[in-house]
């Protein structure tokens, strides 16, 4: 088949969503399909600009390319799924959350002005049209599917995706807790740093870059080297950090899906998360594949200290997680997307 995978691209930003789309293209090609990524730059502010950006997708003609039919488009997130195509499949990584669950929180962007409120309503209508016209709608987690159902009344099939390719392995834990995430407020890496403050024996390695780095570094100052910021690392280094850690911390606020727990599990490491983390809770089960606690530094500190004192349990939970992660395969994803 000739397939186009559609995703937005915030210039200079490359994260989980971009990675999944690019992996999908690679996996499709590996199965003999002609596959290509279509990316359109995305800027979602100020005010009503987000609608212009959605409209850009609407204007694209992807029904054929160079005189040959495009059999299907697979769109991953807002506003890419606004694209028109008679055989459109949407694999929703997330909606434009500023218009939904982020609204009226610190993560929102819209004020109480009539124009801002009406912009949110326009995004809801757009989602209903764009997702409603799709041949099939998948969501990467039950959390994302539930949000879709709740916000725009669209029922999606749950289809999780495998994490990025890395040379996953497990080695003897060296005692540090690893955080792998973009450094922005919603990812709540500050909770882990505060946990380190509460538990002087806790060592933390923070992988990733993002707008919150400066604040996080200030927060970690004075912790006597307990927190190491590793920045962006390559695949080998990342796999190595996973392999040698005690556990992986992952607790964004109501995360859509969360690829990191799968990466941790493939490295046979337990995941430390919080009750309000959303998607990760679908695979991180307390004292079975990790630890789930309240989003409080002291609780996190206690959980990490417990794992450090009970390494055998940590290993067992990591191994149980591996079995969960191995059930999610590209074969299953591609079968569903092309059915």
């Amino acid at each position, binding site marked *: 088949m000739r397939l186009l995978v559609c995703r937005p691209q915030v210039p200079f930003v490359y994260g989980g969503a971009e990675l999944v789309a690019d992996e999908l293209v690679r996996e499709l090609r590996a199965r003999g399909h002609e596959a290509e990524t279509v990316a359109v730059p995305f800027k979602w502010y100020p005010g009503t600009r987000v609608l212009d950006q959605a*409209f850009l997708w609407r*204007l694209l003609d992807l029904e054929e390319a160079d005189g040959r039919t495009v059999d299907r488009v697979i769109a991953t997130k807002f506003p890419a799924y*606004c694209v028109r195509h008679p055989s459109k499949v949407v694999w929703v990584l997330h909606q434009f959350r500023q218009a939904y669950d982020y609204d009226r929180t610190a993560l929102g962007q819209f004020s*109480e002005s*009539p124009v801002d409120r009406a*912009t949110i309503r*326009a995004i*809801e209508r757009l989602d*209903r*049209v764009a997702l409603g016209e799709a041949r099939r709608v998948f969501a990467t987690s039950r959390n994302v599917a539930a949000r879709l159902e709740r916000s725009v009344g669209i029922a999606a099939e749950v289809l999780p995706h495998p994490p990025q390719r890395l040379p996953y392995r497990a080695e003897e834990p060296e005692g540090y807790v690893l955080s792998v995430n973009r450094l922005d407020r919603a990812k709540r890496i500050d909770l882990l740093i505060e946990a380190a403050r509460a538990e002087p024996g806790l060592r933390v390695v923070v992988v990733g870059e993002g707008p919150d780095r400066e604040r996080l570094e200030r927060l970690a100052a004075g912790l006597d080297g307990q927190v190491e910021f590793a920045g962006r690392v390559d695949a080998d280094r990342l796999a190595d950090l996973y392999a040698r850690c005690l556990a992986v911390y992952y607790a964004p606020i109501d995360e859509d899906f969360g690829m990191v727990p799968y990466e941790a599990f493939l490295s046979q490491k337990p995941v430390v998360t919080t009750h309000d983390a959303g998607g990760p809770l679908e695979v991180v089960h307390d004292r079975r594949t990790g630890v789930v606690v309240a989003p409080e530094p002291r609780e996190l500190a206690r959980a990490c200290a417990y794992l450090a004192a009970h390494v055998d349990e940590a290993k067992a939970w990591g191994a149980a997680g591996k079995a969960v992660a191995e059930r999610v395969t590209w074969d299953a994803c591609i079968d569903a997307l092309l059915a």
Partner: protein
Amino acid sequence: MRVAYYSPLPPSRSGIADYSALLLPALAERVEEVVVVAPGARAPRADVACYHVGNDPGAHGWIVDALRRRPGVVVLHEFVLHHLVAGITLGRGDARGYLEAMERELGVAGRLLALGVADNLLPLPWETQPERFPLAGAVLDLAQAVIVHSAYVEERVRASGYAGPVHRIPHPAWPEAPVRPAPLAADPLVGCFGYLNASKRVPQLLEAFTLLRRRRPGARLLLVGASGERFDLERRLERLGIGGDALLREGYVAEERLWSLMAACDVLVNLRSPTMGETSGSVIRGLSLGKPMLVSDVGWFAELPDDVALKVPVDEYEVETIAAALELAADRAGELGAAARAYVRREHDLDRAADAYVAALEQAAGGEAVADAVLWRIAEAAAEVGIEDAGALALEARRAGIV
């Protein structure tokens, strides 16, 4: 968002007043401010106005006057508004206004008919056959957006040519609370609540009740509400021999007593024909109590699921059907009641209704500015490369729900 809210409210005795009393607190939780406007008060500063419109000119005439001064979101509680329109035109000596409303709906024939009415040459259509001349257009012309409660009214609004946004928001149900049933013994107790008149099919109900009573001598009929001005209820009851132990009669009752009486009933009856496109708060109350319900198979009532209400066709077998349905409902009370309660929880949730109101009001308050901003930028981009007519782009933006 500040909302100017126009509606009759308790102690005014109407379904719409009760509706607003139920909705207002939930709405106020969701917006910056709801300013409830009193009759005769000056229009407050607001981002959007919400007008509740029903057919009673006494209760809603002032609301239409306010709507004329400032367009807003119209909540159409009934589609047939002939009585309202006549009241605020002919009733105020404005024959021209009535002529225009009739002409808008029926063309020249409407104008001629209106002339005959204005000159007292013809029977008053709002009393004889209002459903033939709904005159909703007179109000719809002023609406920025319309909120309706049923598919039936939505279809009629669209058929009348209204092109603006129409939001269908089910009538919300009252929050569930413990109700102590009034101590009324019967086998079964059949209840009919609300204004009692011919269009509520009370004559047919009374006849059907006499049939039921022959088969179920323990049956009792509870009639609650005022009877219509030109509807001689007492004479009908006497003629059919419904009295004594068979009849329980109460006039207008306060809220608490209403719930208590309703809870005591084994079967509730809420028939209607002709329908004016109304939704019945009484039906919603009864269903939320888990009571078996008989309704006419018309308008909004026909949209109730088959397992929730027994729907009686308005035809020559109506009386016999009502009698049979009363028995059936009494016998299957548990099953029907459970379905009714589940349906109300599912479809008539107050929070969902309030959320839908906020969505409709927000769209009305800022939607035009959003559309203008997006379309202006699209047109500007097109114009910069020499494409002056961006109409096709605008059309696509509208189709996609962007503007």
